[in-house]
């Protein structure tokens, strides 16, 4: 009995430390790798906790290994867009300009019932009112209504502008050609907007179809 108690204490400390090192996202929205790590870690911890005939190390070693792998994949995801999209996928437009993208629906294996449910959860009862619906990599659905159906804000009342979603076109120095083409812009326009600044020196640049852009330059690491 006492052995089980001590083992539980040890495993608890190790798991809490591992989850803490993985970051706060681990507790809330989970990316696929994080979800796998969380499920496996809890499962691995339970086995030596319940069976005192199994060495504690047979639970600790896999947990430490998972922790190291999770930290490495998180760092690689931060550095490489390709690696990030490989592990976590890309956000997918399920509704674009009010039309359901059936190919995207099939690719994401989302049924119409599930889409309707997600829309209802966002307080939307009519698909026609949705201009954009994006399935995020966390599995959540982000929705943007047509301006005439969206709750009016003070800024919209003054400007009366059409809804524009700014998309990132440069992320940590990397030009996102896919987003550029979605917006209808090209590299020449992008370099022109940067007015001589190299894309390598840009941390984040977002743009809209109208050409509205926001540029956040990279900070000096020193």
């Amino acid at each position: 009995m006492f052995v089980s108690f001590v083992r539980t204490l040890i495993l608890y400390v190790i798991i809490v430390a591992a989850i803490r090192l993985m970051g706060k996202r681990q507790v809330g929205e989970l990316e696929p790798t994080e979800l796998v790590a969380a499920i496996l870690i809890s499962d691995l911890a339970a086995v030596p906790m319940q069976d005192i005939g199994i060495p504690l190390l047979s639970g600790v070693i896999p947990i430490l290994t998972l922790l190291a792998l999770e930290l490495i994949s998180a760092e690689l995801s931060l550095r490489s867009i390709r690696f990030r999209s490989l592990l976590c996928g890309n956000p997918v437009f399920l509704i674009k300009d009010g039309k359901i993208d059936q190919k995207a629906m099939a690719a994401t294996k989302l049924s119409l019932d599930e889409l309707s449910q997600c829309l209802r959860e966002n307080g939307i009862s009519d698909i026609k009112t949705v201009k954009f619906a994006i399935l995020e990599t966390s599995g959540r659905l982000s929705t943007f209504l047509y301006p005439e159906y969206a709750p009016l804000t003070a800024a919209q009342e003054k400007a009366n502008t059409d809804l524009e979603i700014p998309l990132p076109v440069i992320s940590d120095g990397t030009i996102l050609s896919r987003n550029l083409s979605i917006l209808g812009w090209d590299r020449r326009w992008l370099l022109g907007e940067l007015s001589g600044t190299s894309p390598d020196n840009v941390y984040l640049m977002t743009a809209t179809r109208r050409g509205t852009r926001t540029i956040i330059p990279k900070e000096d690491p020193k």
Partner: protein
Amino acid sequence: MKRMIMPLLLLVFVTLFCSVCILRTDQICNETADLIKQAGERFQQGSYEEAEDFIRRSQFCWDSHEGFLGMVLRHTESDDVGFMFPPLLASCRAKNRDAFLEKELELESYLRQLSRMEIPYYFNVL
């Protein structure tokens, strides 16, 4: 790059630790099995006291690493080996050839099997 150092070092540490555990387990199991084998040879030659001495040395070798073995092997496995020594010793004292050879073979092959089980051969991994 700095943030990669910690997880990479952790992976290296885990790998090294596992390798050391495998090598040490293999060494202890084979050392114990070798002593048991020598006990069998002495018994066949009629040197019963020497055989008994080798069994005791083998048991001491196993028992002195009990802490480490309990850390890397299933507790039932390390306990099973410990339980096999007294009947082997008893059959040696009784000079019961058939019983001794049976128990000696059983213990030796079990120890060799334990050392193989810890090595990450593909069939062990699978």
